[in-house]
């Protein structure tokens, strides 16, 4: 085993071409998996020393968040929190205060967990991941990164260097809620993110709803977004959205929750998140 601290993206990509190489950013998933024996990497590629990876920068009115930026750093960035409160609260729900000091949004994405708290709000936000690899740079929508539990669409040698959150129009708001049995420290049993943009008349002009922990990957539910569009979140619109959410759920039964529970609660969370996002967008019911 060896530990490498590449100084350039090309060097990192070349290290990652080696057998059993793993990216280390916050390490809060990697070290747990090493401890349990699920992973035994030969090369640990610490990407925190690459230029720009620990920065949050403004770009085209949006935000580019380096892949090594911790959740705590995101939570401390006032402008980011104001623009994308749902995305930040999703990331900030990962683990404890201690984990927040290390865990990254990009790592949460690349770990490929269906229950990742940091992912649904990114999908609802239309976030785009920037990848570096042996063949150069490419941008991929976050929604296309996870492909199944523990699996991603990243090619060999590729890694995420940053995630871009687009500019916010006026009258927009997002929110993320998850259900856990305790108040902290659990993996989501179900999660729902809602991102809304309101028209000048206060009705929903654009809506995106994304779910976590109810399918092999976090996913957007376009029918749920469509159900909200044109409404002011009146009961029939909410009910239609909840129905669409539950129809899209394909969860598993496990130690954390049952199929019925996850499906039901995903609807409840989506409803509640929609109301929060609506209020954040300045909506009046």
């Amino acid at each position, binding site marked *: 085993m060896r530990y490498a601290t590449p100084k350039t993206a090309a060097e990192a990509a070349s290290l990652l071409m080696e057998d059993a190489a793993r990216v280390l950013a916050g390490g809060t998933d990697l070290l747990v998996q090493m*401890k*349990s024996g699920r992973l035994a990497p030969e090369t640990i590629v610490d990407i925190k020393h690459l230029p720009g990876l620990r920065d949050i920068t403004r770009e085209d009115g949006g935000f580019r968040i380096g892949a090594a930026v911790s959740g705590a750093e995101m939570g401390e960035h006032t402008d980011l929190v104001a623009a994308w409160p749902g995305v930040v609260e999703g990331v900030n729900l990962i683990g404890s205060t201690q984990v927040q000091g290390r865990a990254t949004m990009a790592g949460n994405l690349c770990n490929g967990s269906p229950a990742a708290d940091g992912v649904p709000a990114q999908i609802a936000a239309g976030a785009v991941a920037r990848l570096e690899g042996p063949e150069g740079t490419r941008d991929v929508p976050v929604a296309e990164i996870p492909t199944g539990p523990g699996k991603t669409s990243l090619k060999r040698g590729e890694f995420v260097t940053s995630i871009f959150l687009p500019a916010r129009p006026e009258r927009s708001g997002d929110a993320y809620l998850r*259900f856990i*049995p*305790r*108040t*902290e*420290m*659990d*993996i989501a*049993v179900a999660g729902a993110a809602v991102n809304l943009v309101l028209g000048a008349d206060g009705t929903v002009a654009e809506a995106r709803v994304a779910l976590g922990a109810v399918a092999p990957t976090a996913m957007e539910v376009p029918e749920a977004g469509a159900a909200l569009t044109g409404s002011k979140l009146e009961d029939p619109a909410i009910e239609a959205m909840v129905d669409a959410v539950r129809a899209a759920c394909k969860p598993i039964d*496990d*130690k*954390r*929750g*049952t199929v*019925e*529970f996850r499906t*039901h*609660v995903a609807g*409840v969370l989506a409803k509640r998140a929609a109301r929060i996002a609506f209020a954040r967008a300045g909506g009046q019911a």
Partner: protein
Amino acid sequence: MAFDETKHDYKVIGTRPVRPDGIDKVTGRALYGADLSAPGMLTAAILRSPHAHAKIVKIDTSKAEAMAGVKAVVTSRDFGLPEDQDLRDTQDNCMARDKVLYDGHAVAAVAAINAQVAKAALKAIEVEYEKLPHVIDVDDAMKGDAPLVLEGRALETVPEGWSQNVTNYCEFGHGDLDDGFARADLIVERSFKTGATHQGYIEPHACLASMGPDGRGELWCCTQGQYMVREVCAGIMEIEASQLKVTPSEIGGGFGGKTTVFIEPVALALSRKAGRPVKLVMTREEVFRASGPTIHSSTDVKIGMTKDGTITAARADLRYSGGCYPNGTCEMGAQAAFAPYDLKAVRTYGWNALTNRPKEISYRAPGAPTAIYAVESVVDEMCQKLGLDPVDVRLKNAADKGTKSSYGVTFEDIGLKATLEAAKAHPHYTAPLGPNQGRGLSCGFWFNFGGNASVTLSVNTDGTVNVTEGNPDIGGSRASISMIAAEELGIGYDRVRTIVADTTSIGHSDTTDGSRVTFTVGLATIKAARDAKTKMCARAAALWGIDPEAVEWVDGAAQPSGPNAGKFPPMSLAEIAAVSFQTGGPIAGHHESNADGAGVSFGVHLCDIEVDPETGASKVVRYTVFQDAGKAIHPDYVEGQLQGGAVQGIGWALNEEYIYGEDGILQNPGFLDYRVPVASDLPPIDTVILEVPNPGHPYGVRGVGETSIVPPLAAIANAMSRGAGVRLTQLPMSPPRVLSALMAKG
């Protein structure tokens, strides 16, 4: 000189001084099980079964033994076969002999130059298993066609006709049940199930062993009882007790879970074989898979009540499983079930059945929480059905002094009615509730024990005192023992230092369990102090040239007991100590005895919870504990016991349980999915300490550590029923279970 048997006028008892081991524990200096290292030390690791139940066909350790850096490998072949059955079970649990009985059962261990080599060596050990059918649930295990975990282990008390998995049977009670039920206006009969919970101490089991080929050894470990470790390890290792010195480290929580051994004999065997010291520390996953959780249970309760709330008859059938070896925890549950009630007709029946789960070990009031949960749930349901106040009904039926308890013993002075009355009078009982909130209460009970203790109290020439005792300090006992010594001697708390000794430094003390330390070691300390006072009075008498009987000890000094005794100024402890060498030599008091008279302890918990009707999530929003402590020596640490027990009970009620897959593999061997309560899950835990003196102790002390885990299970279930309109009969009341109950209710 004579001493008052009962003392009332306290100077130190009841105050709240800083504990003597406090600074070490807030600065990181205190040494726990894994904190000690030795020169030349090896690191050990244990290979564990991946199957719930399997025959061990073959273990080939040759490849591991041949690896560079591996210094010893042991399997069950490296241990003898103890004659005593309990010891044999303990040894088999530390290292499986013929069969693995649960997921995580140890099969081999290695000691190597570092952890990486040890881990790699485990992978090189080849074990051939022949998988056997397994059984996980107690009700399944009792069926005639259940897979047999062990054969031929049923005690003679078990009636014929049961599966061989049924190993223990017990029955308690008195009176005519049929007549009692016939007189009832309402009879309610319910069945309950509870999940197995783990003590959840934050410190994994850890030890450092050093043993030579001559059988002389030293062991440093985190345990609730160094003498227990010595007896058990000496038995398993076939060495003499005197040759094994066991030093207890600071202990990072136990709650009963460190009253046996899991790894210590393995570390000793590795050290003996390698000829070097060996450190062995469990991972958290190993703690969950292979140390002892508590029982899981299935219980039927039937109670008859008249319209005015008088219980006319009560019966409980308790089926417990403590995993893969026999145990008597069902006896404790069956005796405790109806302890809070004065009943004319009562019967409890208890069974233990073997399952392919880890060997149960005590967890705070073992057997009682699940039994009383079932009983207190039914009593509460009957109060609801009859429209009666739940405190009034309990007061009406409450056990009191002179009550013949359901387990046959007539109570001395007890504090149950006082705690119920305190609960009823407390503002919490009548405080308004918010939407989706409900309030529940439950009684709780624990026996409390005395037992063996050795204490030496040495008087130093500078007027200070050392108390040497043999019970690991698990939550502030050094402070309470120092306070007791100071109180008895009439000196300041800061003049006393109490230390917990290794097994060679003082005689035997029983394990720190059964809520016994403050009572038993405290009692021994009182007697050791009185012994020292008698000796100091004799020294003063000798100096004064008067009869020792004419000297008494008052306010930290010897003085003539009356005008006829002579006129001498009092001699303080410091003055007598200063001339001790000149008056006969060093002064020390001793006491060694098997104490009795530990008074039982009752508590009442009052709890408000709020249930989210859309998700089934529940949160405890207010909590108050009322408990009789007899006499609180250090009220802070009494409150701490009440609070800590309450929160463990809250965890048991709401989230904690061992979850098994169809394959018999434990699904949640980690804090992540075992889900003990975290700080944000909880409100403040308010406490009200009642002091109904225990007649068996000169200060009136009762044990307090265990009763507090008993009431929360039913208190929360009862609050759930009253707040959300659903009565859950299975623990934990996890959100999926609550939500499905809510949806079934409509």
